[in-house]
């Protein structure tokens, strides 16, 4: 190590500048809080929150603590993100492949979809679905049943609830099936590599995942019944559905717009990934006698996925962060419940905003660390 003054100078100056800025901010924060009589601390998290949340996955009411409210918000954020990610991936992959279709109409249709939805601000789309499109839905009493069991009304989507008997037996059977499939896959791969024998893994997998849970119904005493939502009259003009599961319109609008918006970006990632696989690769694979399906499965997809997955994860992260727009239509996510209502009640601006930011930050950083690890694992080692 040879220290040079030339090297130390700029670093020292930067550090001093950063320390000065932060010191200035902390000093002011202290002075301001003292003069307003606010004390800094996270003790409020265990206090009673005394506000209600419209929609929550865990049991919650005003008598629970602020920490519980935080959890409710976090779970709601995760719920809408997961729904959005699943829908966006399905739609994005379809549209991405459609954009590469030789069929002129499909190609242009997909291109139109992508150009249309990604050039309109997400917030505007959320507002459109929530305030304009979903408001045009029928009232509960006028709603027509979808397949006789679900109802899409202005107050949300009502779907039947599953009522399980001995659910854990069923759950274990599914887990057992999945483990068996993984074992068979590994075994089949070994067989293929050592002896060149091919096993119909897909058929066996489908069979297992169907048969084992079925057995649990027949032998394990598992039974499933549906609770269909039923219309109930509250007052002369006020109706409501009871029973079943209800998805609030906020959730529907948010999940819909998030997935429609993010799907355009995922579609572009998929397209770029498939286009990124060289033509020579496909031709080479075909020339050694692989069928088109095998070419796609063994040659194109593994290489395309290497290009597709990193930007797609980025889009998943964006979707999760964008789900904070929920605050605009009063879907009780982390920002609305915690950085909105809880902040109003406690006035603990610094603590609450920092917790909220830290939550999102740790979510992003953990996913990007995972991504870096994955990238390193699949990167082509070049000589």
């Amino acid at each position: 190590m040879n220290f040079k003054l030339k090297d130390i100078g700029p670093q020292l100056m930067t550090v001093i500048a950063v320390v000065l800025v932060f010191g200035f901010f902390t000093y002011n924060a202290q002075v301001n809080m003292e003069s307003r009589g606010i004390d800094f601390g996270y003790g409020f998290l265990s206090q009673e929150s005394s506000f209600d949340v419209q929609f929550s996955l865990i049991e919650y009411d005003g008598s629970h603590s602020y920490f519980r409210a935080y959890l409710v918000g976090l779970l709601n954020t995760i719920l809408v993100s997961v729904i959005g990610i699943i829908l966006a991936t399905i739609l994005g992959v379809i549209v991405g492949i459609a954009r590469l279709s030789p069929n002129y109409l499909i190609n242009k249709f997909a291109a139109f979809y992508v150009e249309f939805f990604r050039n309109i601000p997400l917030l505007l789309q959320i507002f459109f679905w929530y305030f304009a499109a979903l408001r045009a839905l029928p009232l509960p009493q006028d709603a027509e049943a979808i397949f006789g069991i679900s109802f899409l009304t202005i107050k949300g989507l009502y779907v039947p609830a599953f009522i399980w008997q001995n659910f854990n037996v069923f759950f274990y059977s599914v887990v057992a099936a999945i483990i068996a499939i993984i074992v068979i896959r590994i075994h089949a791969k070994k067989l293929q590599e050592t002896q060149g024998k091919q096993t119909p893994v897909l058929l066996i997998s489908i069979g297992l995942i169907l048969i084992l849970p079925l057995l649990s119904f027949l032998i394990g005493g598992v039974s499933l019944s549906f609770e269909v939502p039923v219309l109930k009259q509250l007052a002369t003009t006020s109706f409501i559905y009871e029973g079943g599961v209800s998805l609030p319109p906020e959730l529907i609008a948010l999940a819909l717009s998030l997935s429609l918006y993010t799907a355009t970006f995922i579609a572009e990632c998929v397209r770029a990934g498939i286009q990124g696989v060289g033509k020579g690769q496909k031709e080479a694979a075909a020339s050694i006698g692989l069928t088109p399906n095998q070419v796609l499965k063994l040659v194109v997809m593994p290489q395309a996925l290497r290009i597709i997955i990193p930007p797609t994860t980025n889009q998943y992260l964006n979707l999760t962060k964008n789900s904070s727009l929920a605050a605009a239509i009063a879907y009780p996510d982390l920002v609305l419940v915690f950085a909105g209502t809880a902040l109003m009640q406690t006035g603990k601006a610094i603590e609450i905003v920092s917790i909220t930011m830290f939550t999102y930050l740790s979510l992003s950083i953990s996913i990007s660390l995972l991504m870096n690890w994955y990238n390193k694992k699949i990167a082509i080692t070049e000589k």
Partner: protein
Amino acid sequence: MSKINFLKPDKSNLNTFLYLGSFLFFIGVLDVLLNSFFSLNITGFLPGFLSFLLPLVLGFIGLYFIRIELSGIKQLDLLNKHINTNNFNAILSLLIIFIILKSIPPILSWFFVNASFAGDSKDVCTGSGACWTYIKVWMRRFMYGMYPNGEQWRINLSFIALALLGSVGYFATDKFKKYLTLYYVVIYPFIAFLFIFFFISGGPVFFDFSYGIIAAILSIIIGFFIPSKFKFYYFLIVPFALYILLKYFIFFEEYIELGKLDGLNWVETGAWGGLSLTFIISFFCLIFCFPIGMAFALGRRSGFPLIRYISIGFIEFWRGVPLITVLFMSAVMFPMFLPADFFIDKLVRCIIAISLFEAAYVAEVIRGGLQALPRGQYEAAKSLGMGYWRMHIFVILPQALKLVIPGIANTFLALVKDTPLIFVVGLLEIVGMLNLAKTNPEWLGFAMEGYVFAAIIFWIICYAMSKYSYNLEQKYKTDR
């Protein structure tokens, strides 16, 4: 004529298959067409399910019949190649054709045929279509927010002036081309700031036009005697120096009374809004986030570990949090970090927050460009004896920035699309104004029109930007 096998269309019976296929296809399309445009159901005599599926079946059989390879008819071959390669594609093509046919009439009728354009009250909107009257009545609000009607010419004038000044680059002769970067990076933002701060806001004035004009005329006259070599630096410094000299040292003027620019009223930023606010915020964030992002991109590639870690921390922090929490922070947390008697305007705080946020994304994009440059470029520049800054300004950055034009354009697009989020701090640009107008008791129930209107505007802006960036990319694409 050979025997016809209907399951296997071939070239020998081309005409038969062609007539039969086109006829069936035509019938299928006609059915949908009549159904959607004239609500006539020519297959209504069939049971409901069959009547619904019939066009698809007919069209499918028709397309199957005309799927003849190398028929020798150019149009038919093109058609087969593009929409009719196999059964699956044929069905998808038919579905898309039917969807388009089905959706045109309702869209047309909503947008134009049944829409109301005239009048200036809600009463004219009786049709089933859109109520564009609503947009017409609220147009000023959507464009200028709560900015007083009588003063809106100030915004128009500023925007026109700034657009004209911004287009200078297209008309600059070769002689002035070398100053364009300086002009766009330093002078133009400064002029824009002056316009917005003094003219649109009518903020506290410390610029006196009478002295300004005298100073300008004087400096131009003296400018004739300056050798052309120094003219640029002369005009950069002397007019301002003359102005200050005149005002404070010769005439000893005080500040003009606060908030008056020769009779302009002060309009507080809370009243700004609408599309003009979108432009103002996008413009300033765009200007600020670029240099900040560049600095942090260089910092992240720096050889000094401390600077590198600080840059990484900055970039990852802003990229990890949603913009809405950043705006929350600027609204409720940031004032706590400032001295008690120190007040920063809401709009300025917003611009700072968005700029820092977008700067992190710009930094990552630029870093991508820096990483993509081959090492040889750095080594070549160093071997010519260039220092860090010279190397980056003359060799590295021009190439790296060229590489990342699409990425930067995408970031700017994201910035424009993110501006509606400022509703969090209570500023209402066009989407915010829509939500406000929607709750007006006299104009209830026109949410759809408003959102469609805003969507069209944003779409045009964003699409134009992305096309422009594509052109830019093509223009600066050089073989490497």
